[in-house]
């Protein structure tokens, strides 16, 4: 009789009995789980202060068994800076939407990276403001229909989407900047590796680490979760190319 090996379990860092409040098939769930898995693997849970942002993931603190602060919309990295400066021995990360990070929070995000704050930011890029009902955001793709671009994003009225990971990489205080995707299981695994790397960079005190995660918003995209992943692959990834844009620990 062979013994069983457990190949999957709910991470310890997930709050017992909690359930995600995300819509069916939303990649936020996968991303939060990956964060929890990495917190487990690096033994960080009890020494972590997480900063939740305003967006679909605002109730992150209901899912993670870690101390958390809810930041005003866009200010998560200012809050994280305050926490880390006050308690440099704590592990500090933010979990933000693309709107939070790159629209209203653009200045805070950029300057946190420039200062090289020793914190980690996870940014969920779902090309829309999910929580408020799917309006056009800083990452909305050209042509994309949203509730505030009913005929699709055109350049004249809306301009272009931002490439977040590239901008972060350009900041001298950034030690690590990567873009990953959750469209397939292999990519989910790569995403986890990137999160882990980012967290390790903070543990080593090397500066700002950043992971942009391409994710779905089936509800506002009005797509099935499956088709939503197709969209990530076919429409998002050609514009927002996954990759590691900066890694000061890589030897090359």
């Amino acid at each position, binding site marked *: 009789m062979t013994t069983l090996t457990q*190949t*999957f379990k709910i991470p310890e860092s997930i709050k017992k009995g909690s*359930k995600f409040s*995300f819509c069916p*098939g*939303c990649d936020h*769930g*996968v991303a939060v789980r990956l964060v929890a898995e990495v917190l487990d693997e690096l033994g960080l849970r009890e020494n972590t202060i997480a900063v939740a942002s305003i967006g679909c993931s605002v109730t992150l603190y209901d899912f993670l068994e870690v101390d958390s602060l809810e930041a005003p919309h866009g200010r998560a990295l200012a809050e994280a800076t305050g926490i880390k400066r006050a308690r440099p021995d704590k592990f500090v990360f933010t979990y933000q939407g693309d709107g939070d990070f790159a629209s209203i929070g653009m200045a805070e995000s950029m300057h946190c990276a420039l200062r090289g704050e020793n914190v980690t930011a996870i940014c969920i890029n779902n090309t829309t403001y999910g929580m408020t009902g799917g309006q056009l955001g800083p990452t909305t793709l050209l042509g994309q229909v949203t509730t505030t671009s009913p005929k699709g994003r055109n350049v004249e009225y809306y301009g272009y989407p931002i490439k977040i990971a590239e901008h972060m990489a350009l900041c001298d205080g950034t030690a690590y900047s990567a873009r990953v995707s959750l469209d397939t299981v292999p990519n*989910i695994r790569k995403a986890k590796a990137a999160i882990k790397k980012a967290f390790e960079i903070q543990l080593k005190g090397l500066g700002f680490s950043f992971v942009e995660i391409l994710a779905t918003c089936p509800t506002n995209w009005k797509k099935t979760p499956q088709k939503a992943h197709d969209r990530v692959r076919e429409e998002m990834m050609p514009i927002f190319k996954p990759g590691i844009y900066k890694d000061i620990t890589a030897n090359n």
Partner: protein
Amino acid sequence: MAEREMIMSHVVIDKERCKGCYLCIDECPKKLLKIGKDVNSLGVHLVEFEDPNHECLGCALCATRCPDMAITEVYKG
């Protein structure tokens, strides 16, 4: 728990977590997951794991894909 569950690869599904997104179904290389008849309190038709031929690989592809940790445990035999 049935004896075979003790020794063979299998998954555990938490019915109250499942939101019926059905992402897991496509993911399983052995097509062991399907939409069932049972409905949970959310009104969702649950995913069922059926593996009469003991094909499950314990690969956890399904659980890795599941956004709601509704596949709470995966075992490899």
